[in-house]
């Protein structure tokens, strides 16, 4: 038993010299990991670090990234949103279907309105009715998928004249050499990060996630704040739908299926705690990019697409574990 204690002592990260480096690694650990994995992949594949490859990966990651920005806000507020996948299907089908019927501008407006409406339903049930967010958004995942199918009658939707609509801007154009989806992703990430870090609103969301009761006892309108996080999440989904619809110029009814998991994986990998009250948007951005580059890197190295799943399993747990281990100064928990 004494030896077990010694082993634990051995893992204690208390040496002063190491503390500086370690605290840097802990704060920026995910960034360091990101750079190392980039380097590793570039050793195995010469195309990996090519400009076109990086652009492709970032562009592909931007849809998940845009959604993840919104979901991160929900998670910082102490809740979850599993309905974003179905919501993405809903919004994409809606905007693509309406494009030819009422014109791109109206289609976009209606789509944003409807998506925000769904976000408001989530927000109402979780913020005002105070129901458990995991279960509510799980139920909404199913219900919204049903709504999409009812709306479209199960048919794919398409935009007829793909060549001559300015709707193509969101998914296919470039501004200053950077793809619009990437710009949108970056813009949203910066705006939301600024809101979360530098505004009273952001402070309130962090407080609610950290201790909802104390937030209410401090006069914060928790109901409204939680409600609003779901509007933000829905807004981000609507932006993602804009990109997705414009990129594909068509949509299947299940196009967003499984996105909620990729989004969650990216957020967790970035290091935002599911318990709420902590986290940041830029970490989520890094997390999402890591997932994208791992997928791409493994494919370039010739591994089958499912190899990334195994890697994701390992790195998600490792990332969260090491973060925890650093905080408690022990690699392992001590209880039996």
């Amino acid at each position, binding site marked *: 038993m004494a030896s077990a204690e010694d082993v634990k002592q051995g893992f204690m990260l208390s040496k002063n010299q190491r503390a500086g480096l370690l605290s840097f690694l802990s704060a920026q650990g995910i960034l360091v990991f990101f750079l190392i994995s980039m380097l590793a992949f570039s050793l195995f594949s010469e195309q990996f670090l090519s400009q076109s490859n990086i652009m492709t990966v970032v562009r592909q990651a931007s849809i998940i990234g845009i959604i993840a920005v919104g979901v991160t806000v929900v998670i910082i507020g102490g809740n979850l949103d599993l309905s974003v996948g179905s919501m993405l299907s809903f919004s994409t089908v809606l905007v693509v279907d309406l494009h030819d019927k009422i014109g791109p501008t109206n289609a976009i407006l209606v789509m944003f309105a409807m998506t925000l409406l769904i976000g408001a339903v989530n927000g109402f049930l979780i913020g005002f009715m105070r129901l458990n967010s995991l279960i509510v958004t799980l139920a909404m995942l199913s219900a919204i998928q049903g709504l999409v199918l009812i709306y479209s009658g199960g048919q794919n939707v398409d935009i007829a004249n793909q060549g001559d609509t300015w709707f193509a801007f969101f998914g296919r154009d470039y501004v200053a050499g950077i793809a619009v989806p990437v710009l949108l992703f970056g813009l949203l990430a910066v705006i939301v990060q600024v809101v979360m870090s530098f505004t009273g609103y952001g402070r309130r969301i962090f407080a609610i996630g950290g201790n909802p009761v104390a937030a209410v006892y401090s006069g914060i309108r928790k109901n409204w704040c939680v409600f609003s996080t779901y509007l933000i999440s829905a807004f981000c989904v609507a932006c993602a739908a804009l990109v997705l619809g414009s990129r594909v110029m068509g949509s299947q009814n299940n196009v967003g299926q499984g996105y909620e998991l990729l989004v969650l994986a990216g957020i967790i990998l970035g290091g935002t705690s599911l318990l709420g009250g902590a986290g940041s948007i830029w970490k989520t951005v890094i997390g999402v990019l890591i997932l994208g580059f791992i997928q791409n890197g493994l494919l370039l190295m010739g591994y089958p697409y499912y190899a990334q799943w195994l890697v994701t399993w390992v790195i998600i*747990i490792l990332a969260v574990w090491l973060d925890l281990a650093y905080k408690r100064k022990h690699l392992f*928990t001590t209880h039996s």
Partner: protein
Amino acid sequence: MTTLKSFLRGGAFIQPIWIFVIALFVFFSLMSEYFLSLGNINNILVQTSTIGLLALGMTYVMINGNIDLSVGATLGLAASLAVGLQPLGLTVAVLASLAAGIVIGAINGLIVWKTGVNAFIVTLGAMIGVRGLIFVYTQEQSFYASNFAFVDFGASTIGPFPVLAIIFLACTLIMHLVLKKTGHGRNTFAVGGNPEAAMDAGIRIGRNMLINFIIVGFFAALAGVLLATQMGASTPNLGRDYELWTITAVVLGGTKLTGGHGSISGTLGGVLAIGILRNGMNMMQVPAFYVLVILGAILITVLIIDQRLNVPTAKGVRA
């Protein structure tokens, strides 16, 4: 009113979900001539047995205050092994797949115990990773059981009752008794209800959680094997989204996500509610698209009712 409330709330002799199950049963019996028959009830039991077995283990894990998102993937892996390894003999195949479930459960449990990482994250990782293992093992292929004995087992009956339904109900009974009567079962509540206190009282909470993860892994594998006997085959995508329906069923059955509260009888009710709804709506020819919406709406409704009934215990503060 208060008596009705306390009647609905009090787990004294009937749980609210069972009232719902009975109501559904009566409703569909009136709506469809085919619904109320021994054959159909057997069908419902067989169809719910898969989610049901997953839910048995999930109930334990959730009472523990954890969650397991990897059950669907574990089920898929077990099914693939149970079919794919049949050239080595049926017994080997079945034992190997059950062992795989136990190992995955143990891995999840050990990680949760030793690293202290939230079970949601650990099993989310496993859910993605184990699916990868299935694809590595099967090379994306479906497997087919050449041995019809395997399939015949899945279709066999004892008296008028299908074997699969009997296995499910027997497991339910055992799990109910273990939870209610044994030290392990009671410790499961203690660990979920107040881990700190349980630890101080000398309950080995890590070990308790590990055992429960092993249990849920075992049941996921068992469900996979039994599902494979129904199909005589396995597909790499088998079990996708099952975790969502399993959690839904367990929550419908009254188990709290926060841990420390729940029951197997409630879970059985939750599983049957979903099974009867699906079966009944099939019988009534409700279009598949609407079924999704209805299931979602019912889940939210039950959640609201449950919350309204439990308001007094929340001290009535608008916090």
